[in-house]
């Protein structure tokens, strides 16, 4: 069952929604506590996050570093603009590949939904080209993961 939705909106937005069977407090903590973030924010199979810094306060910085078994890696840095405890996070982030991508403004809401939480993440990119570039980066990761699996079969 696919519980997630992902869609583009206008020229510059990407909207992601996902339901979780846990209260907003827990989902919020899993997004701000480095020890919890390191367990799930990993992307395709084979990647780990050895460095996870997250200062969950207005103006606080975060830094996530990913690596895989082949020694490839990249990182994201960002700053918090606004936090409403257990309900909303607003931050800007950029990916370093190693050159920094243009800033992505991300607003994440955690709304009570039945016994669980509806998370709504709204990304705002500076322009359509940057958004396409971000989506293309996702594709590249996906392709790398496919290649790794392919190597395993040969």
């Amino acid at each position, binding site marked *: 069952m696919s519980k997630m939705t992902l869609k583009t909106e206008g020229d510059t937005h990407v909207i992601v929604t996902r339901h979780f069977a846990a209260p907003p407090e*827990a989902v919020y903590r899993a997004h701000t506590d480095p020890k919890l973030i390191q367990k799930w924010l990993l992307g*395709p199979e084979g990647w780990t996050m050895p460095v996870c810094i997250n200062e969950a306060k207005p103006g606080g910085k975060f830094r996530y570093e990913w690596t895989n078994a082949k020694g490839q890696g990249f990182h994201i840095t960002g700053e918090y603009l606004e936090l409403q405890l257990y309900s909303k996070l607003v931050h800007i982030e950029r990916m370093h590949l190693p050159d920094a991508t243009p800033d992505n403004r991300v607003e994440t809401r955690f709304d009570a939904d039945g016994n669980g939480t509806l998370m709504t993440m709204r990304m705002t990119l500076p322009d359509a080209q940057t958004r*396409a570039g971000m*989506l293309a980066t996702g594709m590249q990761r996906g392709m790398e993961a496919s290649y790794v699996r392919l190597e395993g079969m040969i």
Partner: protein
Amino acid sequence: MHDLDGAFSALADPTRRAILARLAKGEATVNELAEPFEMTQPAISQHLKVLEAAGLIVRRVDGTKRPRRLAKAGVEAMDQWLGALRKALEKNYDRLDEVLGGMEKHKKGEKR
């Protein structure tokens, strides 16, 4: 069926992906495409040739101009990018489900 290998290697270059991203917004001339990349026209033309050979873009004749636009395979590539991001995110959130399940158990254990 178009050349999948050609499309894959054509997409391996970040400039060519950026060109596709620009063309996703609409048709553009070589000059318009060269501008944001600080590249010479011949360098851009070389990239366009690779994208054309891979069947990702097509050209139109408009007087002396040859504007390029996305071919069907190029549009499909853009859709695939969205699909790959979706997959990576879905994997993350499946893992998060497990993390949240673990937190709940931990909490209940503390209360007892």
